[in-house]
């Protein structure tokens, strides 16, 4: 009896925490609802962008190629012959080693278990995301990640479950040191295809190396082999949850190498998003008005 009561109280507490954290973490739902203002006139399109900034809209169309424009290069790739070599090896590794292993792994472990394993690894990545949100002064992301880390480590039993998202509605953010460097206007340098890891760049590979110092597993008494074994479990688990993304790309694109390179460049660009404002005289510093203490706990 008491147990059931305790669980209900716990759930209520979580649900109560959620909206508060939502204000702090900028929960998407609120933003979305505020931005969604349907109009009654059906005849002609009118501007409906309510709270969405106008430049965001224009950015959606900024890919219109200007006539006579230089050919579109999304990321420099001077090492293409080498990269293609590594890509070829990775492709074979994928189809003949990693994917079959992941398929066996999927056959043995049921879906919820694999999701939980993924949650644990994701939770272990919290220090990286927290650190990088801080480095970019992304207060919303920082709040979300700190909240997620504490809730999921405690109520989520060491990260096995994700009550922060399930009950709190706070989704994980994507932050890494490569993004932080991008935020401060550092470019990719050049495209790299890393063995096993796959698409990366000079900047992002450096970022991953720096991030590895914030990996809690690094500070345990694990042998090097054990460390890599755990990393392989992480990768296998992730592959087992994947819906044949790579197979789809190979099947659909004329040249999978080119397609993945372009997708990687675009994806990273979208993740870096808004960059640090270098011009002090123009507009707010860092992540905009989010540093405004009066605005921290209540948007609008």
């Amino acid at each position, binding site marked *: 009896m008491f147990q059931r009561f305790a669980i209900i109280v716990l759930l209520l507490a979580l649900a109560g925490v959620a909206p508060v954290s939502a204000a702090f973490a900028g929960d998407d739902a609120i933003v979305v609802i505020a931005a969604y203002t349907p109009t009654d006139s059906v005849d002609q*399109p009118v501007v*409906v962008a309510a709270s969405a900034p106008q430049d965001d809209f224009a950015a959606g*169309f900024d*890919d219109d190629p200007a006539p006579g424009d230089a050919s579109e290069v999304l990321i420099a790739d001077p090492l293409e012959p080498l990269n293609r070599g590594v890509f070829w090896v990775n492709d074979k590794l994928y189809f003949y080693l990693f994917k079959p292993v992941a398929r066996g792994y999927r056959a043995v472990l049921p879906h919820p278990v694999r999701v939980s394993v993924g949650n644990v690894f994701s939770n272990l990545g919290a220090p990286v995301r927290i650190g990088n949100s801080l480095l970019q002064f992304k207060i919303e992301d920082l709040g979300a990640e700190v909240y997620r880390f504490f809730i999921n480590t405690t109520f989520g039993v060491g990260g096995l479950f994700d009550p922060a998202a399930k009950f709190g509605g706070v989704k994980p953010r994507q932050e890494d040191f490569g993004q932080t460097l991008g935020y401060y206007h550092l470019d990719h340098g050049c495209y790299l295809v890393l063995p096993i890891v796959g698409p990366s760049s000079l900047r992002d590979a450096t970022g991953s190396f720096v991030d590895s110092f914030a990996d809690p597993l690094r500070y345990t008494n694990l042998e090097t082999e054990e460390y890599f074994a755990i990393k392989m479990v992480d990768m296998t688990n992730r592959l087992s949850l994947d819906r044949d993304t790579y197979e789809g790309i190979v099947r659909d694109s004329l040249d999978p190498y080119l397609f993945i390179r372009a997708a990687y460049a675009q994806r990273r660009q979208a993740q870096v998003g808004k960059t640090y404002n270098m011009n002090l005289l123009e507009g707010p510093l860092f992540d905009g008005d989010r540093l405004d203490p009066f605005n921290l706990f209540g948007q609008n």
Partner: protein
Amino acid sequence: MKRIILLLSLIVLVLSTVCHALPEPQAKVEEMVNSVLSVMRDSQMTLDQKKSQISGRVQQFLNIDSMSRRTLGQYWDGASVEQREHFARLFIKILEATYLNRIEDYSDGDVKYQKQRVKDDKAIIDTVIVANELEIPVQYLMIYTDGSLQVFDLVIEGVSLVRNYRSSYGEIIRRDGYDGLFALMEEKVRDMSEPASGSSVQ
């Protein structure tokens, strides 16, 4: 508590406006997605039947002309009329096959419509596909031509499909010329139309 009330009242507000006619661009996307999903979820049809049904339905919602123009980018201007037509013919087949292969993966998912923005003759519709703990943001970019709104690009998790195609196709044209590109595309169309043999089962 205050925030909960605010949230609830906002939800009520939104729900009450939904009763009115939806704005056109989003309604258009919903129409397309729903017509595809209704076919996908029909348990009576075989996969091939579904595919042929869907390809007919989707084409009217896509602006193939605008898509091919954008995909070739600067190489559109340099192409002859025959080359443009040849390209459009192959491109639509590739697009269709890609779309059909993808929709198969997400047919059990739910599509949430988040917001739409309209400016002049263009519109962006933000949606999220929710399938198995996964949330994939998908944006539909639409253009108003000849009295109808049509999709000309899909942006999935920040990756624009057309931009991706442009980048790869441009590289192939630079390397092998138009004929090289067409040869590759024809080969791909042949491969894709064959029954899936190598693809694994979930």
